[in-house]
């Protein structure tokens, strides 16, 4: 393939893999945290809210560094995960997914939270009177109603994950074939004089992938919204 080198293809595939996993794996947590923030009322709520927004506020390098000292092999959580569960994040694509997920988390949570806040609690009450417990009300009423918000959150997260660079490279470095994602490759090209053309190629790929995801998701979201509205 003349357009992209083998390494570059790997980077494309890896970026997709990382972004999809980052989105998919963080979605349940995103929904949970959004639910807690939208509906909960407990002392530490503002702290949780702040924590969720932190990756947005901090320079990505700092987030990456914090991840490194926490989830690295020497980090308290990283060591635990490795010893107890055999999960290694450092220098692996899994770590890249973690970094992308964390960076995208505030976006995902905010979208889902807004959707939850727009659900009419009267419908949930009605479901309650019909015998559904809180969990079942959530599963049968809230969740379907916030689906467009969940899709929006997932798309934002996916797009962000596709573009995430600073935290990822700080946390898992750039190992071709393992942690080299598109943004890292693009960054590398931009560091050397004359690398712009190569960078542009990768940018185009990245944009194409993300745009496809975007358009598909818009279509799905529209369909879902129409089904909900029932028209």
């Amino acid at each position, binding site marked *: 393939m003349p357009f992209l080198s083998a390494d570059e293809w790997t980077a494309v595939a890896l970026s997709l893999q990382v972004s999809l996993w980052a989105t998919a794996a963080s979605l349940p947590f995103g929904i949970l945290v959004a639910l807690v923030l939208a509906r909960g009322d407990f002392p530490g709520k503002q702290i949780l809210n702040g924590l969720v927004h932190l990756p947005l506020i901090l320079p990505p390098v700092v987030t990456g560094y914090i991840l490194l000292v926490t989830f690295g092999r020497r980090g308290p959580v990283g060591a635990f995960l490795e010893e107890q569960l055999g999960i290694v994040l450092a220098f692996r694509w899994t770590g890249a997914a973690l970094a992308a997920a964390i960076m995208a988390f505030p976006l995902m949570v905010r979208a889902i939270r807004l959707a939850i806040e727009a659900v009419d609690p*009267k*419908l949930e*009450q*009605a*479901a*309650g*009177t*019909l*015998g*559904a*417990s*809180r969990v*079942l*009300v959530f599963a*049968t*009423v809230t969740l*379907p*109603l916030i689906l467009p918000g969940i899709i929006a959150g997932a798309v934002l997260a996916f797009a962000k994950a596709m573009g995430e660079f600073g935290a990822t490279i700080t946390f898992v470095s750039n190992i071709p074939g393992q942690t080299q994602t598109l943004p890292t490759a693009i960054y590398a090209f931009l560091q050397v004089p004359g690398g712009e053309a190569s960078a542009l190629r990768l940018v185009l790929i990245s944009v194409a992938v993300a745009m496809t995801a975007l358009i598909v998701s818009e279509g799905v979201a529209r369909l879902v919204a129409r*089904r*909900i*509205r*029932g*028209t």
Partner: protein
Amino acid sequence: MSLSVAVTHRFPGFSLDVAFEAPAGVTALFGRSGSGKTTLVNAVAGLIRPDTARIAVNDTVLHDSDAGVWLAPHKRRIGYVFQEGRLFPHLSVSANLAYGGWFAPRGAVEPGERERVVAMLGLGALLDRRPATLSGGEKQRVAIGRALLSAPRLLLMDEPLAALDDARKAEILPYLERLRDETDIPVLYVSHSVTEVARLATTVVSLRDGRTTRVGSPAEVLADPRAVPTLGIRDAGAMVSAVIRRHAEDGLSELDGPGGPLLLPRIAAPEGTRVRVRIHAHDVILAREAPAGISALNVLKVTVAAVRAGEGPGMVVQLDAGGERLLARITRRSARALEIAPGLACYAILKSVAIAPEDIWIAGGEETGAS
């Protein structure tokens, strides 16, 4: 006892303080807009948590603020027809109807019940639609169906028939009667319609500004001349009981009523059945002598028990008919002309057709020999 409610709750500018005990059957909440009916129903449903409350249904305590008992709404097994629909917009009509069944104990919804309810409510053609495009009345019918099909231990109905036309009401009311008579599910029923209340209710609770003004059987509450101002003069009336003697071929049923035979439009119940008939005070004509050659078929021998002047040109006359009470509303001018006074023996004239089918119903429970 079946439904026991004692609730106090304050909103800024409004306070609710209601207590009543109602036997099995339909308890009607009756009162003007803003009198606290929905608030009370919400308290029973567990959707608001009143300041103090003791609410029990069939010996199950739903809420006892003193004892610290509070059952979550989903554990109360109520079918609540909300005043404003609250259908699930993302579910089809069919799934809305099925919703309550998903959480009810297995087998709690009788087989065939769904089809009966769908047919009664005329929802057959709508099952695949979503609520958004339904008409107002269609939505309300789905809401009724959803509550009925949730296998509830308690039904709460907040003006369930307000958005419906009379023909549709006439189809639904008998179903609710059957529900009342054949099951022991207590129903708390909010309505502005005296006809509905008189027909369905076992007990009437009349509310005013968050306070109970009267609690009693419809016969007591609705036939009480003192209730006339609360009810609105047009709705005063009494209930008498009668036994179906025979069904005539010309479409009439002949009954043994208080103070004489009664002829009414055919009642769909076997001979021998005891029924209750609501007779509106303004439908009763009084005569000194038994009239002849008139189209009205019912002429009852009665004695004037009490006379009560209302505001305006009318007065309410309480009559004794073979031990039962009847109300008649006549003008003062007639009263003077006929020299109506307590103790006077006279005749009450009543048209058969003046009695609407919804004013006749099979007496519930113990008294009946009917199915």
